[in-house]
């Protein structure tokens, strides 16, 4: 009887010891998992599109550089030129660091925005921006990857009788194409520039 009790006590002790040994390991493992989840980007930039020079492009072409991605259409008279000029200001402000950042303008109006239409639009902002377009299917796939919204709606007064609504944020992707941050439309270029500089310097 006493022996059994002694044995039980021993087993209990062994159990506690085992737990004491294993617990930190489990905990460390859990912590590492958490840290990884926090560091892991929400999604990866992933696209197969044609640039404004007619070249086939994927995110791999920009590996090792940060990507500043935004969506729009060349017929857009307000939001898009404003965003393009903001991006031009950011790129100018980056100075030597500009080499580390590739701005990409992705069209959500593939019907009108052929590569040559983009070639007549994007380079005018003189900021090294690459215009990307594709087939309607390619653009639809890209929008799903980037979790952005766009919609064509009929507007009698608009050129060609339609205009587009679209997500107007500016997205930042890291050197491994992972999503890093986004800024809402109308965020001052100076604010984005300061944030971007800090991230590049890290």
């Amino acid at each position: 009887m006493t022996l059994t009790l002694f044995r039980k006590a021993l087993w209990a002790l062994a159990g506690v010891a085992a737990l004491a040994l294993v617990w930190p390991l489990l905990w460390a493992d859990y912590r590492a998992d958490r840290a990884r989840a926090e560091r892991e980007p929400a999604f990866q930039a992933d696209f197969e599109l044609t640039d404004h020079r007619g070249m086939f492009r994927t995110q791999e072409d920009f590996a090792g550089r940060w990507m500043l991605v935004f969506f729009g259409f060349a017929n857009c008279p307000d939001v898009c030129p404003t965003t393009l000029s903001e991006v031009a200001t950011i790129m100018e402000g980056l100075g030597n660091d500009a080499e580390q950042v590739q701005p990409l303008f992705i069209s959500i109006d593939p019907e009108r925005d052929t590569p040559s239409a983009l070639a007549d639009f994007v380079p005018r902002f003189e900021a090294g921006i690459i215009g990307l377009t594709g087939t309607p299917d390619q653009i639809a796939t890209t929008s799903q990857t980037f979790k952005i919204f766009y919609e064509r709606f009929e507007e009698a007064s608009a050129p060609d009788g339609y205009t587009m609504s679209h997500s107007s944020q500016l997205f930042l992707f890291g050197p491994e194409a992972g999503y890093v941050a986004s800024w809402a439309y109308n965020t001052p270029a100076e604010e984005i520039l300061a944030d971007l500089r800090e991230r590049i310097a890290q």
Partner: protein
Amino acid sequence: MKSILIAMLVAMTLPFGLATSARAGAGDVVVENAWSRASIGTSRPGAAYMDIRNAGDEDVMLTGLRTDLAGMPEIHLTSTNEQGVSSMSPVGEIAIAPGETVALAPGGMHAMLMQLRRPMEEGETFPLTLLFSDGGEVTVEVPIRGIAARGPDD
């Protein structure tokens, strides 16, 4: 003879008097900081921006635009929802209370210049006439800045 002279004087000054009374409405509208961006050819619409101030003491109602530059000039509003989706729609009439300023600025309202009749060239200007409900008009010369301009001076 003297009375005829007075009558003539009154008749001559009458139009001025009418013009002065009209100043209580659209005549007291001041347009400042007008600017626009250069266009690429004429196939895509342009946009112009400005501050429209009602310096009078009566409400004014902006009803439309007119310019020889574009076949269809209209005020449009860009709105961005919580999900960050921007879209554009015609505004219609805009009431401006006494002392108030309505800003046409990037990301908000803009004078959308559709059916351009000639390209908007950097360094040039074009006349844009604002039409008001009282029949008054205000014409402003809008400077055309570079395509990447961010405002009236930068």
